[in-house]
């Protein structure tokens, strides 16, 4: 049941369709479904059991990068940004500078996250 809710959450946000559209790899959808399922199972295993195995630093950095990209897409797909933002921009007449305002949000998130990890928690 929890799995259903999780998959429904991911579906509604449209992250996977968007990624498939960008990379034009629509026919591998089965593979992507298996990726999500196996990733979830590995995550459950990691969070309930204590295992560890040494990995290369580059690989760890890649894991962190992938994590960030996924959460970033999640944050972008939330309704608040996707629906409210363009309507607001059109209402107050700044729709040609929309890209610059988008950059404000993106840079804010990057700087906020870095600030949080490097200074805030010490």
């Amino acid at each position: 049941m929890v799995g259903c809710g999780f998959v429904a959450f991911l579906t509604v946000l449209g992250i996977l369709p968007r990624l498939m559209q960008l990379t034009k790899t629509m026919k591998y959808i089965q593979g992507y479904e298996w990726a999500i399922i196996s990733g979830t199972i590995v995550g459950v295993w990691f969070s309930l059991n204590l295992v560890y195995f040494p990995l290369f630093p580059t690989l760890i950095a890649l894991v962190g990068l992938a994590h960030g990209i996924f959460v970033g897409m999640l944050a972008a797909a939330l309704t608040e940004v996707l629906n409210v933002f363009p309507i607001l921009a059109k209402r107050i007449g700044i729709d040609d500078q929309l890209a610059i305002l988008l950059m404000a949000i993106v840079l804010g998130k990057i700087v906020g996250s870095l600030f949080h990890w490097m200074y805030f928690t010490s």
Partner: protein
Amino acid sequence: MRPKEKITVGDVAVVFTSKEEKEKIESLVIYKVNEKDQNIIIIDVMRIIQAISREMENMEIQQVGPTQTIVEVVFERKRASLPFFIVVWLLLFIGAALAIMNFHEDVSMRAVHQRLFFILTGEQDETPLLLQVPYSIGLGLGMILFFNHVFKKRINEEPSPLEVEMFNYQQDLDRYVIINENDESVTHIDER
């Protein structure tokens, strides 16, 4: 359209007919803009048919395409000022930074990262920066990927979800305005 202008058939429609008649039809005046109309005027195809059949005899009219035209009367150009824009920019910047910090605290991401770092290397670390710095960069990359926009350049030909949303909103607005502002579509029977 500016206020106090006339709307002709040629402004709102494309006419296909023989050459002599085409100019005459296109110059027929359908409507004159006055102050009562405010910003939006709807020209229904029935007005065009009325105007044409009044002037020319024995005309067969076939209408192709949408049945209404939305005419926007422009009074003055709305231009957002620069200080206002900078204020909004700073607001969005600081707001996004704080939102992401609160999100991290909410989902206790720090504990997850510490544990993940232990799982992946076998070492304990209070601030696993090796995970967290790429994570922060990935955050920005993910948002940009979703919006299809790096500063002013596009990564791809396709419209980004934001543009699709704006288009949908404009469509909804147009549909609402067509039904509401059009004089033809609402008839009050009990006031006759």
